[in-house]
Structure formats: structure tokens, C-alpha cells
């Protein structure tokens, strides 16, 4: 009897694994159709399958979290980057060669990002990498790219105060999102600001900037609160907000906390007409997970919405939905990842080589009619000129644009052009 046990246990463990694995693949294929795209075409290669190095192809790296908490956001960016690569391949590739993406999983773990970046550059010999989402993952990869002289395209809005020679930033920096949003709110919605954010680097840096700006532009700080990442009960926070009576809540919460916050805000009887909430990390994707009914009327600041009215955007949205399912939505970081691939391809065509120094040189001043409007690479800090847009959530889960900056705004990651920001940055 006793001797029997380990055997039984082993058998059961194996059976369990098989059952779970079976369920997994069954579920994926059975197809809610929404999530995992059927791997279309043959251009996707797994991490280790080395493509032939005979010079007919160009290998590029894609490094996002495909598992763990951040996969919520990053999987969609990976999808749009793959789509851009497929589109470019269909048109004949870059320099007459097909692009072969080499995918790695950052697993929502910052040291893993650094390690995989090193592997992509040193072992897989990719010529560039598209990847990252959180600032922590970017900061982890930065020394690797600088050491090995690689090239990283980072597609997400971030807190600024950085400009690495080996990174191109295709998301917004602070003066293309937060600063204009604060000015707009001061003009249109009221002076009393309540700053609510998750307790880590991006919200704290952003709020430091906002506080300086409020001082300079005549705003008033009603309160400033941070909650731990993954916080799920906002009842006390909402009581504090009710007591502070702000006109505007500037929301820099990240991830799932947004869901809890907005649901509970509505339950407490506070709607968008009572207090405006402007978020900087709630886009179309997040709206689907939070529920339109609780978000309707609240605002967000981005450079791109699915509803943005440009010719390039119509084609982009069509392709994206065709490739990954009708009920998928596009959003700002998804667009930023998509244009990153095109910008890199254009720079390589111009340089005539994939060598990093030449590509960087060629990228200076490069322009592109992106889905979110015209963008241009700034030669000095390798950020993009982008149009700022403020949108309001509609009943269908899409944004209605209330305001835009009219023309692409010059990126200014260190806020050098703002007198009030002098105390913030010592680059």
C-alpha cells in the first residue's frame, strides 16, 4: 500500500497536466476568436528556431510580456507589431529582404527583460528590438542596449526625463500628454485637482510635474494619494475625495486598480458630471475590461484613438480587425508599436543598411503619416513629434475627441521649454 503511493501520485500528476494542457489548447482553438490570433503566415518563429543566416532575411526581435500581469496590455502591442512586419513583408520586405520576427517573452519580470534583450542581440543577432511596456522593463533593458549598441523601439507613453542614444521612444513623453492635459483641464473643467496614482515611479514622477505646473498656472491641489499596485478597495480613497471636493481627479492608476476604482466611484454616486476624471492609462483596451457603463463621460489623454479620423487609421483599424477578430480594438500603444516598425523600416531603407549607427543617423527627421496623424522623429532625443488628443468615453466604448493640439507637438522629455519645470530635471 505504502509503496504504491508515489506511483499513483505521479500518474495523477501527469494526468492532471495532460488534462489542463488539453483544456488549454482546446479553449484556444474552440475560439472565442477574440484573443489569441491564429498564427497566420509562416513568418512567426519561436524563440529558438534560428532562421537561416544566409542574408536573405533580416531578423528583428519582439520582446513583450506574453505571460504574467503585464500580458494584459503587451500581447496586443505584440500583435500590431507582427501585423506591421507582415504588411511590410507582403510589400517586398526591407532592402529586398523578408523580415523574420524572433519573439521572446519578458514574463512581466524586469530582469527577464534584460536577459532576453541580451539573448536577442548576442545570440539571435537581431538588428533591432521592438518591446517593453513598463518603465521598469525599459530601465532594465537600457544598459543592455547601450552596452551592446543595440536598438530598442519603446512604444508606450512614459514619465520622461530620459533620452538614451540606443532607444527610440514612439509613445508620448510628458509634454505630449500630461502637461497639455493639465492645461486643458484648468481652462475647461476647474482649478481644484486631486491626484490619484499607483505607488511607483511613473505616477509619482508625473504628479511631481503636475504639482509644479499647477503652482505655475494657478491651479490648486486638493489632495494627492497613492495606492499599492493591485489595490482593490477604493471606498476609503473615495471618502477622501468626497471630503476634498475637487473639480478634477487626475488619475495615474495603473492596471487592474482602474477597474476597482471606477466601479466603486460610480457606486458611491459620483458620475462624470459631478467630478471629471482624466486618466492617462485607460485606453480602448482597458475600457472593455472595466465596462463602459462605469466609464462613460470620463476623459483620457492620448495621441491616438481608434476613432481618430485619418486615412492611415482607417486602413490600420481594418487590417487589425481582419487579422485578430472583429471585436478587437486598437489603442494608443498598439498604434505606437505599429508605427515603430514602419519608422524603423523607413530608416533602414534610407540608410541602405541595418547597422545601428547608420539607421539612427537616417532616422533623424524621418516623417510618417501615422494612423494618429503625422509623426516625425526628433533627431536630438529620438522621441516623436505627436499630436495630443483629449477624448471622452462614449456609450459604445470609443472615445470622442474633445480637443487636439492641432499640430504635432515637439517632444521635450526634460521639459526644458517650461520655466516652471526647471527644478524637476537635472539631465
Amino acid at each position, binding site marked *: 500500500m505504502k509503496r504504491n503511493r508515489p506511483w499513483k501520485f505521479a500518474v495523477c*500528476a501527469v494526468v492532471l497536466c495532460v488534462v489542463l494542457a488539453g483544456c488549454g489548447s482546446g479553449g484556444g482553438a474552440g475560439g472565442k476568436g477574440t484573443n*489569441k490570433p491564429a498564427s497566420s503566415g509562416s513568418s512567426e518563429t519561436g524563440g529558438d528556431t534560428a532562421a537561416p543566416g544566409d542574408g536573405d532575411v533580416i531578423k528583428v526581435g519582439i520582446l513583450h510580456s506574453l505571460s*504574467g500581469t503585464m500580458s494584459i496590455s503587451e500581447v496586443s502591442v505584440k500583435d500590431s507589431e507582427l501585423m506591421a512586419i507582415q504588411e511590410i513583408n507582403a510589400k517586398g520586405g526591407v532592402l529586398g529582404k523578408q523580415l523574420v520576427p524572433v519573439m521572446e517573452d519578458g514574463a512581466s519580470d524586469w530582469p527577464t527583460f534584460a536577459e532576453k534583450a541580451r539573448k536577442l542581440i548576442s545570440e539571435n543577432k537581431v538588428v533591432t528590438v521592438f518591446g517593453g511596456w513598463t518603465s521598469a522593463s525599459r530601465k532594465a533593458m537600457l544598459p543592455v542596449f547601450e552596452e551592446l549598441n543595440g536598438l530598442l523601439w519603446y512604444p508606450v507613453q512614459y514619465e520622461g526625463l530620459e533620452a538614451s542614444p540606443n532607444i527610440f521612444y514612439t509613445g508620448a513623453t510628458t509634454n505630449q500628454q500630461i502637461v497639455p492635459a493639465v492645461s486643458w483641464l484648468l481652462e475647461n473643467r476647474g482649478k481644484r485637482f486631486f491626484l490619484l496614482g499607483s505607488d511607483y515611479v511613473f505616477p509619482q514622477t508625473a504628479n511631481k510635474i503636475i504639482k509644479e505646473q499647477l503652482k505655475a498656472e494657478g491651479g490648486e491641489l486638493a489632495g494627492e494619494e497613492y495606492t499599492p499596485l493591485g*489595490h*482593490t478597495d477604493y471606498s*476609503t480613497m473615495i471618502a477622501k475625495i468626497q*471630503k476634498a471636493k475637487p473639480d478634477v481627479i487626475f488619475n495615474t492608476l495603473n492596471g487592474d486598480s*482602474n477597474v476597482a476604482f471606477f466601479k466603486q466611484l460610480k457606486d458611491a454616486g459620483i458620475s462624470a458630471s459631478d467630478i471629471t476624471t482624466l486618466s492617462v492609462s485607460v485606453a480602448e483596451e482597458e475600457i*472593455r475590461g472595466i*465596462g463602459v457603463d462605469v466609464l462613460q463621460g470620463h476623459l483620457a489623454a492620448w495621441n491616438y484613438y481608434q476613432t481618430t479620423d485619418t486615412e492611415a487609421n482607417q486602413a490600420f483599424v481594418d487590417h487589425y480587425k481582419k487579422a485578430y477578430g472583429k471585436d478587437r480594438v486598437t489603442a494608443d500603444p498598439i498604434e505606437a508599436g505599429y508605427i515603430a516598425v514602419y519608422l524603423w523600416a523607413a530608416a533602414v531603407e534610407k540608410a541602405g543598411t541595418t547597422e545601428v549607427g547608420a539607421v539612427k543617423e537616417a532616422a533623424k527627421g524621418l516623417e510618417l503619416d501615422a494612423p494618429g496623424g503625422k509623426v516625425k522623429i526628433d533627431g536630438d532625443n529620438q522621441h516623436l513629434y505627436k499630436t495630443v488628443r483629449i477624448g471622452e468615453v462614449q456609450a459604445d466604448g470609443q472615445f470622442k475627441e474633445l480637443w487636439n493640439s492641432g499640430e504635432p507637438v515637439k517632444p521635450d522629455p526634460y521639459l526644458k521649454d517650461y520655466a516652471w519645470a526647471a527644478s524637476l530635471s537635472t539631465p
Partner: protein
Amino acid sequence: MEITIIQLFNGLSVSSILLLIALGLAITFGLMNVINMAHGELIMIGAYSTYLTQTIFSSYLPSSMFNAYFILAIPISFMIAFAFGLLLEGTLIRFLYGRPLDSLLATWGIALMLQQLARTIFGAPNVAVKSPAWLDGGLKLMDGVVLPYKRLFIIGLVALTLIIMFFYIYRSNAGRRMRAVMQNRDMAACLGISTRRVDAMTFAIGSGIAGIAGCALTLIGPIGPALGTYYIVDAFMVVVLGGVGKLIGTIFGALGIGLTNTMFEYWTTASLGKVLVFLCIVAFLQWRPKGLVAMKTRALD
């Protein structure tokens, strides 16, 4: 004044949520001594069951019936989590009784597998559950004091669950057998109780209650593959503070943590509040290592 009332209510509400997520664990960990790291994922299963019920209702039944889905979602969540619990117990947990370290690792592995399973089936992004219309809004006590119906509903649901559990454990034959096995397994076996069946049943019931918790949490929180990880620490905290092995201790544990947490969070900040609560718990457990309500048992262990 208004703030005091609101904060008292918030404290009560947080306590009720903590109690709901800890009740299932109070059975699987408290009574059975299985360090069940997959408890959070059973909550997640409950939440996704609610999502599925909602989806079925909105696509196959007339929209006039939509508001009723939530009532049905509660037993469905229970049943699905119950079935998962039964499967888990039968295939894995039963080989690990009395081996706490092994069960910790194994259930943690199960937790990761279940998370990835949810990610494969439902996708990595969160899904939205639309709460029924009759739970929108709140009860207005006075100017500036609104008690959301959802939170009142959760308090009611917790009370109901507690009452049913009380009758099951202390007033039914099955409950009596369960207590007998947990208190003195060998003696119970001698008297002809099938301890295997009781173990399986107990674990499944604990899992089922986690499913109910998941269902209730869809009203106020996110529904995603990582949902369980947000609640697992709190759940263990409540059970350990309350005293392992006693349901009444779990109730007091939840009340204590919920009320002090909202108080500290209001006076300081969310992060500092949590730290202070942890400090209090550590200090308290130094003073009374067995928790608020210590279990008296005749078992020799």
C-alpha cells in the same frame, strides 16, 4: 460626521469582503490544514463563471431577463468552483495531507496553471461584467452619505453564507462527521466514518465558497486571470489572525482587519495603512500566537 458614518460603513464593507474571501480558506486551511495557495484561483474561477453566466444570458435569453442573471450566477459559481475543488482534491491534495510544505508548492503550481488556463481561454485582458440594474445606485441616509447597494448586497450575502455554513457544520449530520474527522481522524475512522469522502467533500465546499466570493467580487473589482493574486494574502492574513480551525475566529479576524485598515488608510495613506495593519498583526501574533480564537482539541499533534 458624515465622513465618520461613511468610514464605519466602509470598514464594515471591507470586513465583509475579507470575510467572504477568507471563509473558503478557513475551511481548506483552517480545518484541513492544507496550505492552499490556489485559493485565489478558485475565487477567479467563480468570477469567470459569473462572466460566462452573464454572456449566456445576454446572448441567448431575452434582455428583460438579464437582470436576473446575477441571482443564478451565485449557485453556478459555487457549483463550478465546487467541481474544481473536488477534482483538485481527488487528483492532488489527498496525497499531500500532513505535508504542508509539499502542498504549499504543489498548490502554488496549480495556481499558476489555472491562471495560464484562464489566459488561454478568456485571453489576457480583463473581461467586463455588467452588474444588474437593481444593484446600481445606493441607499441615501442623509446628505453626503450614500450606502451603495452592491456593498449592502455583499454584506447580506456574507451573512447568508455564514448562516448556511453554521447550520451545515454544527447542525447537520454531514457537518458533525466533518468536525469529527478534523478533530480526531483515527477515532472517526474507527467509528465507521469514511474519512476519504469527508475530506473530499470538505475541500470542495471550501472551494465552492471561494467561488461565491469570486462571484460577489465581480461587482466591485477587476475580472482577469491575475484576480486571485490580489486577494490571497488578505485571505491568509484573516485566517491566521482569527485563529486556525475556528470559523468564529475568522469572523473576528475579518472585522478587525477591515475596520483597522479603513481607519489607518483614512488617517494616513493606502500604502502606509497597509504597513500599519501588518505591524499590528505581527505584534498581536507575538502576544497570542494562536490567533484571536484558539482551537481546543483532543487530537495529539
